[in-house]
């Protein structure tokens, strides 16, 4: 049942049609989430008793940091699908996620360092989390570099899938770095299993923002994937009929 769905999703025309129908919904939801999250975070949430208003950068930083890990997990997962079942869509999702993941990682680094200036007094410290996040950026760049270095794009996609899978070891290291090493960076405040140690009025906008980021990612990746798909399948029957329909 699930397998059948996966295979169906893997068929380019089906994917193209489905994603076309999904996109407007996703965009709407994403917009609402962003609006609510930003309003809640920047207006409703109280100022922090220690950090004052500068804590509000959390609404950019933390979701971006989460996304940097999340996107990588998606890539590894699609990599596995691409290798095991040779699903073309998975390849396309994988490679089109890399740029987005790199941007999120970069955002987390920049906002983190902007936040670090008032908090720690410097832009940058070489602690385990920060450094390993930087390495995640390199991992993304490595994936992009490898993909662009191989001329045959189908080959390149497979190569990148293997690399993404091997690179997965770094994810738990980044995630647990704050626990394994005593570092300057914030310990888990939100993602603890018991009661989160954060005011709910701060928490809810944060979660809203986290979802808004996820939708944003979904939208961008689908747009890029559709483009890529059309290009790759430009000589197939379904693309031809699609365009003749649109042209007519």
């Amino acid at each position: 049942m699930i397998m059948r769905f996966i295979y169906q999703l893997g068929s380019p025309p089906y994917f193209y049609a489905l994603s076309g129908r999904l996109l407007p919904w996703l965009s709407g939801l994403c917009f609402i989430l962003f609006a609510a999250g930003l309003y809640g975070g920047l207006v409703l949430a109280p100022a922090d008793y220690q950090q004052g208003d500068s804590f509000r950068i959390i609404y950019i930083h933390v979701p971006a940091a989460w996304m940097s890990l999340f996107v990588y997990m998606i890539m590894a997962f699609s990599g596995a699908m691409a290798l095991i079942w040779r699903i073309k869509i998975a390849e396309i999702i994988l490679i089109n996620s890399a740029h987005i993941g790199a941007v999120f990682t970069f955002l987390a680094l920049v906002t983190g360092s902007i936040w670090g200036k008032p908090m720690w007094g410097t832009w940058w410290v070489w602690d385990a989390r920060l450094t390993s996040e930087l390495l995640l950026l390199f991992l993304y760049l490595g994936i992009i570099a490898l993909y662009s270095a191989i001329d045959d794009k189908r080959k390149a996609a497979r190569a990148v899938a293997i690399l993404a899978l091997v690179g997965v070891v770094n994810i738990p290291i980044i995630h647990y770095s704050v626990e394994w090493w005593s570092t300057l960076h914030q310990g888990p405040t939100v993602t603890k299993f018991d009661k989160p140690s954060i005011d709910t009025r701060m928490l809810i906008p944060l979660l809203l923002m986290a979802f808004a980021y996820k939708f944003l990612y979904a939208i961008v990746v689908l747009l890029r994937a559709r483009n890529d798909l059309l290009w790759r399948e430009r000589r197939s029957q379904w693309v031809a009929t699609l365009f003749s329909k649109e042209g007519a």
Partner: protein
Amino acid sequence: MLQAFLIILQRDLILAIRHRAELMNPMLFFVLVVVLFPLGIGAEATILERIAPGIIWIAALLSALLSLDRIFRTDMEDGSLEQMLISAQPMSLLILAKIIAHWIITGLPVVLVGPLLALFLGLSAEGIETLFFTLLLGTPVLSAIGSVGVALTVGLRRGGVVLSLLVLPLYVPVLIFASQAVDAAAAGFPTAAPIAMLSALLLLSLSLTPWAASAALKMSVS
């Protein structure tokens, strides 16, 4: 099967020995890099002692990195790799043999010489002991992970630096756990946890990377 494993191991070792210079070199390179540090940084004993394990591990990492290419590149260029791929032997087994040969040539010397250099840099006895174990467990991981990196880039005509970009981030966990263990030992804390992590990495990488490398090679050659 065993015969195939052994003959590839033997073949790669012969190839290294035949260039006698090659055999000495990963070690000499390692020593040279370690020696550069006092030169570039200055010879303050307290600082050197403090950074000794880090330096040694970084040198080990770079010396592995520099010699990775030999795992597959020449085989690719002269067509031997094609012949292995269409041979009647499982490719991942042949790759495992090549990984182990690479470790014997580049990793083993570092395991043996590293502790000695640490002694000169002033590391404490406990630190040196732990350093030795971390090197023993960690260097094979470098060869194993590296094999995947080379397999991915060997089809590119000049993949030298792309390779470093791919492989170095993957080497970082080894570096982190190893230096954590040595630091803990030097400070008198227990080292079981990072050593356990290193062992896990070793098992994981030796059992999984040959498959990954084999898949990557099939892709690179086609």
